[in-house]
């Protein structure tokens, strides 16, 4: 096939009418020229024309052969097939509609999962050559997690001293602020950010290196497309406008194009120069060099990632830290940074597989229905196909015809699936936001909405074609394998094993429905159980206020303490591991050190005197802290019951001495925490152990030692007890009030919401599986219903004979029901078995699952089995009862 050939064929397709006319003209000219010649030979006009035509032979045959040469015949065939298929759909619109809707439903569901997957793992950010971008991370120790622990100074030095990267950028995110009262999230970036990523602004200009001058950046920001449309209603005149961020005026200089997310999964609202970090968080002011940043470099040179890693490792290991070389070589890791969660698609796919399987089950069940429908239709179309075969159509022609029908249905299903997936996505988002309190989400879900891109469309098209083709191919090939003579006589050729195929499909459907419904009931019971678990602390009227900005601490405490809805304010620091040495003492702390009775590690947390009261932690023995005991210097501690039992035999800790010193063997969980000075405390109280009932989140479990602190000391967060019944209302009032004090404040959350995380997750899982399970059940029953109706229609003669021979109506009903419900029973058993195997595999793989849900809950298995059996019985009994009303005389007379 050469270029000219392609061009000619293309012309034949595009300018079809013209090419046809030219062909007609050419042939007509020949005949006319021949006629002319014959006229010259002396024949009459009619004779001349007749002879010319005779010499030429069949004009239309020649034209057809010419058309064959240019290969337009195939197009004609396809067009005819499409017209024919449309006529077929018109004749049986309900069947076509059922196929399209069923497949669309399943496809829509699967494509929601795919959209989510694509958003997280496939949707590479719209930057120049993203495969060259690598995030530089420092491994904190052998086998430990990589975390970005470079400072701005490290970044500057790396750019100055190494030539591994073509260029590198530093990012600080997320930074929370407010624009006109609305919470926004931003990323602070170096001035070469946009230039290095190769992204141009949609309007205005991006940030430039001169905006990020280290001696003092310019107060300018660049909006993301998301923020531009959400906050500024896509106003094209937004450039040059001034917005106030943390009471400082910033100028909007540009808007980035849609689809650019700045190397994240979700786009921030704006980008600002990193040099201005001090304006965004007061704690950064004056120490810009030690801000922890993400570093991303572009490997444009000939260096491989391995060589680059080696180069950076040498550089980092030689670099002085606080004037000395690091104790051990610094391990550097390069991770691809393309704006997706991970580039490890295999692991991502495995992680997503349960969702794909659960949603795919619906598609599979729907396709089983379609296949059944087509098997049935194939039988009823035997006569039509037989006639066409007898008239000389090749098997391939008829297969092609049937597959054209499938393809058309697939396209319609893919289009409907796209609409369905949008609907399902909205539904899932709505469910997520109504079930889970929005403040629990780290990201605004609206920002995260997956968009339909070419990947989703391709997925839908492929899914539609595969699902209709696979399930249409077998019926199609079966339909063309006919005994011609018998078919022409009008006899329906009985396909050899129709029942077995149908029964297998029904069993698969029932099994899928069972799997989903068992899951739903397990999740429901898990959620109910989680709702009644005592989190161990008072959650009914308590609110958590984390303080991120130490500079505003006093102002915040002032605002909280004077707020009318707040009753008590307590403070606490996160738990830290320490070494404890317990000794028995007579109470005189100043005396000679008493012998150590036991040694061990404990967790300790600093709490203010109000803490025990606010969270309802009972003091079992002794007392809590007095209002005067507000620092470690008070020399007193309160211990939990289990610590008391562990360190002092008999659990009598009161009055004894506990020495705490920093635990150097493990990495401190909070790198910023002030190191603990080794010192002795007197135990003044023993309190109840906290938590343990909930597995997730494990925030409340604490069985350690409390040391005194005050609300004013840095690093603590506030826990409030509020007045009045409505904690949520109080929370909103606090958010309103406190954000005027510290605009970057976030994460004010009721303890009730925090304690409910496990329940929310289970409840969401329940709704997901119950919706899917009910869909599966509805599809199964509708399939069962239609198949049974069809089978009874096919077997009406046999039933008539049975009844004529003396079978009663109840015999017939029982026969029909038992035949159709047996596969349902097998399916339920198989689905239950599969669920049990899955449950055992999952619980053995992760002990957390076992503690959250009871995966082998017999109630779930029994209940879902009964529900499916009952619904299927109901669905099957309608056609079965109809079978019982068959008039034997009428059916026998039909022959």
């Amino acid at each position: 096939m050469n270029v000219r050939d392609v061009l000619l064929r293309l012309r034949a397709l595009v300018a079809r009418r013209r090419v046809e006319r030219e062909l007609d003209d050419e042939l007509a000219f020949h005949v006319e020229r021949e006629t002319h010649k014959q006229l010259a030979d002396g024949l009459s006009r009619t004779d001349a024309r007749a002879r010319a035509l005779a010499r030429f032979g069949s004009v239309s045959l020649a034209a057809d052969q010419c058309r064959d040469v240019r290969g337009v015949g195939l197009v004609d065939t396809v067009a005819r097939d499409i017209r024919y298929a449309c006529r077929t759909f018109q004749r049986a619109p309900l069947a076509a509609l059922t196929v399209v809707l069923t497949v669309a439903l399943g496809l829509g569901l699967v494509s929601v999962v795919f959209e989510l997957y694509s958003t997280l793992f496939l949707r590479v950010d719209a930057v120049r050559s993203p495969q060259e971008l690598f995030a530089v991370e420092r491994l904190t120790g052998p086998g430990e997690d990589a975390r970005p622990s470079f400072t701005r100074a490290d970044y500057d030095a790396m750019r100055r001293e190494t030539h591994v990267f073509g260029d590198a950028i530093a990012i600080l995110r997320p930074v929370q602020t407010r624009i006109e009262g609305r919470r926004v999230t931003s990323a602070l970036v170096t001035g070469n950010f946009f230039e290095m990523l190769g992204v141009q602004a949609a309007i205005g200009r991006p940030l430039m290196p001169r905006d990020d001058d280290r001696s003092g950046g310019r107060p300018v920001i660049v909006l993301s497309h998301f923020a531009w449309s959400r906050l500024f209603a896509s106003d094209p005149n937004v450039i040059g406008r001034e917005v106030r961020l943390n009471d400082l005026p910033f100028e909007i200089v540009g808007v980035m194009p849609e689809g650019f997310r700045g190397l994240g999964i979700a786009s921030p609202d704006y980008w600002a120069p990193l040099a201005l970090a001090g304006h965004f968080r007061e704690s950064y002011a004056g120490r810009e060099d030690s801000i922890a940043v993400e570093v991303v470099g572009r490997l444009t040179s000939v260096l491989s990632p391995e060589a680059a890693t080696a180069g950076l490792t040498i550089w980092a290991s030689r670099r002085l830290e606080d004037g000395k070389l690091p104790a051990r070589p610094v391990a550097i890791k390069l991770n691809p940074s393309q704006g997706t969660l991970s580039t490890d698609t295999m692991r991502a796919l495995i992680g997503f597989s349960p969702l794909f399987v659960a949603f795919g089950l619906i598609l599979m069940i729907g396709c089983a229905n379609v296949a059944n429908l087509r098997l049935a239709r194939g039988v009823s179309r035997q006569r039509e196909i037989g006639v066409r075969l007898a008239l000389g159509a090749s098997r391939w022609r008829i297969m092609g015809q049937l597959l054209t029908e499938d393809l058309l249905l697939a396209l319609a299903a893919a289009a409907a699936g796209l609409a369905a997936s949008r609907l399902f996505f909205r539904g899932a988002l709505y469910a997520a936001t109504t079930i889970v309190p929005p403040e629990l989400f780290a990201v605004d879900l609206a920002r995260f909405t997956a968009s339909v891109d070419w990947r989703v469309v391709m997925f839908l098209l492929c899914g539609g074609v595969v699902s209709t083709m696979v399930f249409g191919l077998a019926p199609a090939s079966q339909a063309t394998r006919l005994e011609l003579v018998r078919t022409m006589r009008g006899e329906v050729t009985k396909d050899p094993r129709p029942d077995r195929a149908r029964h297998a499909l029904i069993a698969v459907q029932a099994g899928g429905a069972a799997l989903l419904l068992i899951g739903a009931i397990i999740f429901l019971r898990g959620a109910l159980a989680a709702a009644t678990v005592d989190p161990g602390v008072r959650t009914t009227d308590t609110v958590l206020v984390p303080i991120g900005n130490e500079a505003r601490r006093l102002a915040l405490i002032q605002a909280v303490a004077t707020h009318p809805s707040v009753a008590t304010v307590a403070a606490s620091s996160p738990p830290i591991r320490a070494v404890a040495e317990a000794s028995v003492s007579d109470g005189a702390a100043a005396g000679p050190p008493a012998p150590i009775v036991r040694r061990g590690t404990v967790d300790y947390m600093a709490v203010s005197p109000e803490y025990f009261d606010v969270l309802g932690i009972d003091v079992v023995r002794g007392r809590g802290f007095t209002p005067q005991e507000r620092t470690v210097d008070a020399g007193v501690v309160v211990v939990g019951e289990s610590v008391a039992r562990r360190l002092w035999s008999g659990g009598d800790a009161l009055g004894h001495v506990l020495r705490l010193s920093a635990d150097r063997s493990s990495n401190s969980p909070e790198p910023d925490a002030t190191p603990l000075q080794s010192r002795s405390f007197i135990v003044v109280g023993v309190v109840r152990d906290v938590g343990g009932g909930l597995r997730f989140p494990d925030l409340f479990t604490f069985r350690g030692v409390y040391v005194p602190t005050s609300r004013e000391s840095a690093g603590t967060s506030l826990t409030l007890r509020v007045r009045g019944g409505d904690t949520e209302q109080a929370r909103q009032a606090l958010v309103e009030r406190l954000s005027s004090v510290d605009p970057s404040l976030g994460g004010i959350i009721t303890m009730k919401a925090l304690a409910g995380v496990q329940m929310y997750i289970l409840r969401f899982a329940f709704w997901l599986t119950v919706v899917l399970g009910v869909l599966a059940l509805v599809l199964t029953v509708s399939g069962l219903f239609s198949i049974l109706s069809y089978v009874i229609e096919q077997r009406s003669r046999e039933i008539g004979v049975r009844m004529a021979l003396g079978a009663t109506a109840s015999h017939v009903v029982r026969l029909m029901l038992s035949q159709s419900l047996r596969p349902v029973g097998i399916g339920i058993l198989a689905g239950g078995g599969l669920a049990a195997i899955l449950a055992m595999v999952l619980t053995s793989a992760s002990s957390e699952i076992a503690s959250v849900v009871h995966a082998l809950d017999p109630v779930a298995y029994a209940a879902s089995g009964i529900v499916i059996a009952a619904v299927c019985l109901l669905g099957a009994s309608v056609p079965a009862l109809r079978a019982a009303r068959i008039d034997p005389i009428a059916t026998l007379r039909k022959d």
Partner: protein
Amino acid sequence: MARHPVPDLLPGTLDLLILRTLHTDSLHGWAISERIQHISQDVLQINQGSLYPALHRLEHQGWIEADWRVSELGRRAKYYRLTTTGRRQLAVEAREWERMSMAIGRVMKLA
């Protein structure tokens, strides 16, 4: 009129004849068949119905190309002419034909 005037035309020779006829100037379909008939002194009569599919095939192969011109009858007709690749193809086929006919001629004389 015989339905198959060239019953023993070897397969592929029609292409050769068309290419050779178009060697000197561009002609329309009727003229091609007339010229072949004329030069062969009425021995080779092209089946006119099969001439056009052959022309179209050659056109698709890129050996000949066509344009519409006003014919001797004053009516537009499709004129075919050889392309450069067609010329090369003609040379190849002509050589092949030469070899074939000489071989057959030798066999006929000596066998």
